[in-house]
């Protein structure tokens, strides 16, 4: 392998609410980034993404995002995923008020 694989999580938006959700190791959709399954293997990541994409009655726009391990569980790497995990910066709306997840 020419390049080390960056660990991934599977993420999407909830069909009903539009809220950001993350695929857990036990095949639930969690609203918390730290509960996501951190996938270290590229082939497994692709399989998990494809499986998740079939759940069209539950979620929309499934994709893989970079993540890294943290004390509570996986943490986002890119700032876009930080905002998705937290909510907008101009109002205390979204996940930042609805969950206990602090901004990493």
């Amino acid at each position: 392998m020419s390049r080390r694989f960056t660990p991934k999580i599977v993420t999407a938006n909830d069909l009903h609410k539009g809220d950001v959700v993350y695929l857990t190791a036990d095949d639930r959709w969690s609203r918390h980034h730290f509960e996501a399954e951190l996938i270290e293997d590229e082939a497994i990541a692709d399989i998990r993404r494809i499986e998740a994409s079939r759940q069209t009655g539950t979620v929309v726009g499934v994709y893989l995002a970079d993540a890294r391990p943290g004390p509570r569980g996986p943490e986002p790497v890119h700032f876009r995923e930080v905002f998705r995990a937290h909510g907008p910066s101009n109002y205390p709306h979204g996940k930042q008020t609805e969950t206990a997840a602090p901004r990493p």
Partner: protein
Amino acid sequence: MYTYTEFDDAFVRNRVAQFRAQVERRLDGSLTEDEFKPLRLMNGLYLQLHAYMLRVAIPYGTLNSRQMRQLALIADRWDKGYGHFTTRQNIQFNWPVLADVPDMLDALADVGMHAIQTSGNTIRNVTADHFAGAAADEIADPRPVAELIRQWSTDHPEFQFLPRKFKIAVTGSPNDRAVTRAHDIGLRMVRDASGAPGFEVIVGGGLGRTPMIGKVIRDFLPRADLLPYLEAIVATYNLLGRRDNKYKARIKITVHENGLDAFRDAVEARFAELRPAFSGIDQEVLAGIEAQFAPPAFRQADTAIFDARYATDPVFRSWADTNLTAHRDAGHAIVTISLKTPGQTPGDATSDQMRVMADLAERFGHDELRISHEQNVILPYVHRADLPAVFDALRAAGLAAANMGLVSDIIACPGMDYCALATARSIPVAQAIATRFEELKLEHEIGPLKIKISGCINACGHHHVGHIGILGLDRAGVENYQITLGGDGTEDAALGDRTGPGFAYDEIVPAIERIVGAYLDHRDSPAETFLMAYRRLGLGPFKAALYGSGEGARDRAA
């Protein structure tokens, strides 16, 4: 103002009923997302970063108090108690739940509003000068024509699957406040040598990835030829426009690649075929619409109460000097209500603020409000004697910022705080710049200065035509902001020039401060505005202020 006919009402309600059934079928699994997505986009429903977003059209920016109150009700009942007014005279609700959207659309239909064609590759909400019908410099009110175009373009069977989205703007004034040169089609009302009214037709303007100033395709188009000519342009584009590459699909690229002359020839040929099919019914419809836009009866009254307050209250005087615009009737004024109080999100209004503005329009403003592409709200017909009462009510609602056209009157797209396409945040940059200049108390000394911020290359924040434009990008996983200078969205439209390497999130406010500082140092006199000074001086002194004396002195990620 235009009132829906029975046909309009039935059309909009029928569309809501269709969409309600489509949402039900999506939720019960009968429709996949691939099947549903084009249906929801046809009705203005996006899926953004944190939630769905419903974009509602405010055609040519005009609404009445009942409609504004309904927007407040929708914000309270189905959203988080606020709405975001956009640069295309729409309002966006950022937090709807999918199952509620049909009810929201029904609530809109109750007041003659809709979200049709606020997305997708169709002719979008037609925009117009926000001072239409009131401006002192106006040839004629452009809104009847805009309404005619709305009716013609809504559900037009030939134009539901264009190569790309299509935006039309109309102005009735020589001073272009509708950014007509940055639209797919811009229409400027003019008169020919005999005094007959018509349009200068501009085609192929647009911002985004490949910004272009529109080109004049017809110097003078007689009024009665408008719809067949528009139809000829859009039909020609529909045929010639590229569908192989999304980034080359807008009409500006079609015109650029084919050349204006060849494109014009194709349009004129199509126009010759179409013109005979327009038997004059469109003109009858237009005449009916025009009757509904008759100006209100302007009251004649003493303005002593205004004069007295103006003479004695410096806060009122500052607001009046900044936020009022000359009206066609000398006893009246056009009031711009700033949605840019420093520190607030540009273009956002709470439901309570919407109700205050609706009440003021009803009580003092002939029941009319406007939304500007600069994300402010306008009361177009206020008698000067009523201005003190209007100001007091606005101040009590946190809506009396005296900053129209000044450094804190910033256009900003939602950026990465909401938008799925964004590459960086816009809103906090706007908040920080406005707050900083509020602290410096320099705003009125700086004078007219338009800052426009986009959070991605698509340029919803019109950064290319900002006197100072800011474009937020993702550079190797970090927010980075490029600056352009000297852009202009008026009749003298110009695209800004890039200064050089971009700035990090925590460097952008000091960078803007250095640019403004350079302007204050170099201007001839306070009468020379930022844009005038830039045109005289060029990039030089501003680059020096930004990067130090050596060009690109600092090694930044470009």
